[in-house]
C-alpha cells in the first residue's frame, strides 16, 4: 500500500492548457503539502492544508489553485500552463503541522513530472 500516492506520474501538455494533479494519503495525517522541485533538485513549498484548511500559501502565481475535498486528498489545478511550470511536483503529508516536531515529519509521494511544450 502506497502511503502518499500521486497521479499522474508523468504529464506532458501544451502551453496554455489547464491540468490537474491528484494526491491521496492513507496515513491518517491531518496536514498535506505541495512542493515544486526544479531541474536543480531544489524543493520549494507551494501550499499546505490542515484538515481542509489552507495553512501555507507561498508566493505562487494564482494560476495554481489547490483544492482539498477532505483531509486525505489534496489536488493541484494549474491554469494556462507556461513553459516555466515544467518541473516535478511532489505531494507530502505529515501527522500535524504544529505540536511536537515528530508530528511534522513529512512523507512524500513519488512525484509528478510535468513537461510543458
Amino acid at each position, binding site marked *: 500500500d502506497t502511503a*502518499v500516492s500521486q497521479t499522474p506520474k508523468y504529464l506532458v501538455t501544451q502551453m496554455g492548457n489547464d491540468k490537474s494533479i491528484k494526491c491521496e494519503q492513507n496515513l491518517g495525517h491531518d*496536514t498535506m*503539502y505541495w512542493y515544486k522541485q526544479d531541474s*536543480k*533538485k*531544489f*524543493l*520549494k*513549498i507551494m501550499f*499546505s492544508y490542515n484538515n481542509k484548511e489552507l*495553512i*501555507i500559501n507561498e508566493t505562487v502565481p494564482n494560476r495554481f489553485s489547490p483544492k482539498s475535498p477532505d483531509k486525505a486528498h489534496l489536488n493541484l489545478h494549474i491554469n494556462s500552463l507556461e513553459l516555466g511550470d515544467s518541473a516535478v511536483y*511532489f505531494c*507530502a503529508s*505529515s501527522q*500535524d*503541522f*504544529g505540536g511536537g*516536531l*515528530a508530528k*511534522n*515529519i*513529512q*512523507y*512524500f*509521494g*513519488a*512525484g509528478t513530472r510535468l513537461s510543458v511544450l
Partner: protein
Amino acid sequence: EDQVTQSPEALRLQEGESSSLNCSYTVSGLRGLFWYRQDPGKGPEFLFTLYSAGEEKEKERLKATLTKKESFLHITAPKPEDSATYLCAVQAKGSSNTGKLIFGQGTTLQVKP
C-alpha cells in the same frame, strides 16, 4: 532570510571510502533539522530529525550531527546502494504554526564498487 546551503553539490566515493556531507543553515531560531534521501525518480524519504546542538542520530552507515550553524551527515564505509541525493531541511521557530520546511539544494552521492 532563512536559508539552507548544502555542500558539496556532488560527491563521488569508492565503496568503503568514508566521507561527510555538510548542511549550513541560517534561520531565525532553529526548531528542527531534517535529513532526507531521494533516489532518482522517487520522492524524498525521511532519514533523521535533529532538534538541538550536540544531538546525534545513527542509522546503519549514516550518522547525522548538529551544531548551532550546521549539520553533517557522515557516511561510514559506504556501499553502492547508498548512492542517492541527500537533502537537508530546516524548520524555523517562526514556522512552528505552519510546519514549513526550507530545503537545501541537495548533495548527490555516487558510490562506485
